[in-house]
């Protein structure tokens, strides 16, 4: 069971309290009506899923209930860092842009 640092609770908490919520830093476009079908498909369905550091959303659903972002290494399964929703994507070694 992983320990996950909740950036709002400022504490490492057991994975059981959290729920994964998909890729991070996807912004819902404000002009969706103007998007072509191909653009909308890219936004809705296409995800990166790289080997190595991924940026993903988690929710401390059974804790403070906040959504937040995390960088996690899919090889070691270790969290590199976690940060609050809305904060910029950190620059990390080994992470794809």
């Amino acid at each position, binding site marked *: 069971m992983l320990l996950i640092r909740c950036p709002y609770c400022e504490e490492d908490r057991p994975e059981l309290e959290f729920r994964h919520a998909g890729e991070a830093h996807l912004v819902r476009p404000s002009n969706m009506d103007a998007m072509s079908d191909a653009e909308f498909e890219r936004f809705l369905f296409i995800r990166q899923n790289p080997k190595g550091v991924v940026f993903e959303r988690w929710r401390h659903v*059974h804790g403070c209930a906040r959504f937040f972002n995390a960088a996690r290494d899919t090889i070691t399964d270790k969290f590199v860092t976690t940060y609050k929703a809305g904060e910029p994507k950190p620059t990390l070694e080994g992470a794809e842009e």
Partner: protein
Amino acid sequence: MAEPIGTLRRPALSDKRAARDTVSIKAADPCLRVALRAPRESVAAVSTALGVALPSRPKMSGSDGARSALWLGPDEWLVLDQAGNEMLPALAKVDAFHSAVDVSHRNVGIIVSGRGAADVINAGCPQDLSLTAFHVGACSRTLLGKIEIVLWRIAEDEFRIECWRSFADYADSLLRVAARDVSSS
């Protein structure tokens, strides 16, 4: 909300007292509860109206007499009034943006006390409940087995568990089987 005819009320958990020397599990008395949400800029006004300073740090609670505010998230508190004094009228007068919702009947309180209290809760709660990690007054939303709870340490050997009404039987029975283990060892 004013208490109407007392006999009408049927709490989810009747008071089944556990007679074990190391740990006692009992239903807390009914109390008033408000699920409170407020952004940082409203906290001062809301605190004044409540008469309790809303804690701003994670896992902290603040109390004034029978009224307590438990930090659940950066803009979320569970406020309990165990003397039955209404909170919503005063909060209704606060102009600053906030949300106050009566959840007095949504939750059930369970008091777990005795020197085995932390061990009993750790049968289903994955958090570190040592006094250094979960000091007296600390509170947190977390898990107890398969349900979500709010855990509040009211004394070194005394915790209050708040869970939703329909989960109270599960919480109570899990705590009791765990108490059986903790008391026997």
